[in-house]
């Protein structure tokens, strides 16, 4: 997105809004990660404690999810830049 047409007050305001939004998005990403990994990794409810196998699965799942999100983010930014260039032609 391009905020260069905004005046100083608007840019300041927008920066605050975006900061709040990123915090909210991060929290939502975090809880969706936990839900997704828990759903995949935890299927034994004969005990309330996380088994070492379940814990390992949760850690791998969390690591992989973060790397996945980062990679999607990088591709997304590229595609977005391409789409913007195409629009300006």
């Amino acid at each position, binding site marked *: 997105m391009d905020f260069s047409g905004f*005046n100083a007050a608007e840019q300041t305001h927008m920066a605050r*809004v975006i900061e709040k939004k990123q915090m909210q998005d991060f929290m939502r990403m975090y809880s969706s990660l936990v839900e997704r990994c828990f759903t995949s990794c935890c299927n034994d409810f004969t005990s309330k404690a996380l088994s070492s196998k379940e814990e390992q699965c949760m850690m791998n799942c*969390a690591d*992989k999810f973060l790397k*996945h*999100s980062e990679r*999607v983010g990088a*591709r997304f930014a590229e595609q977005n830049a391409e789409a913007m260039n195409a629009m300006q032609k």
Partner: protein
Amino acid sequence: MSMFGIGGSSSPSSGNINSERMEMAMQELDMVTDIFNRIVSTCHNKCINTRYAEGDLNKGESVCIDRCVAKFFEANKKVGERLQSVGANAGAAGGGAFGL
């Protein structure tokens, strides 16, 4: 200003902030975030092995993610063009459902 009807251009607290423009920027930001989150979720379902034997993306997963994102963008564009060509009157139809 805004999305939830706070103040208007005459609101004392919004100073010289052009609320229409801010609002549109915020709506665009919401839209982009929503699509990004859907791509993360959809491409995870398509590409990531849920056995979670390791914490790194393997080669196959990485390549799949790249293609999945590119394909999603293309699909999104095609659908957008389609909706514009049919006049995007679905929004109106949806609103009509509430008898407003």
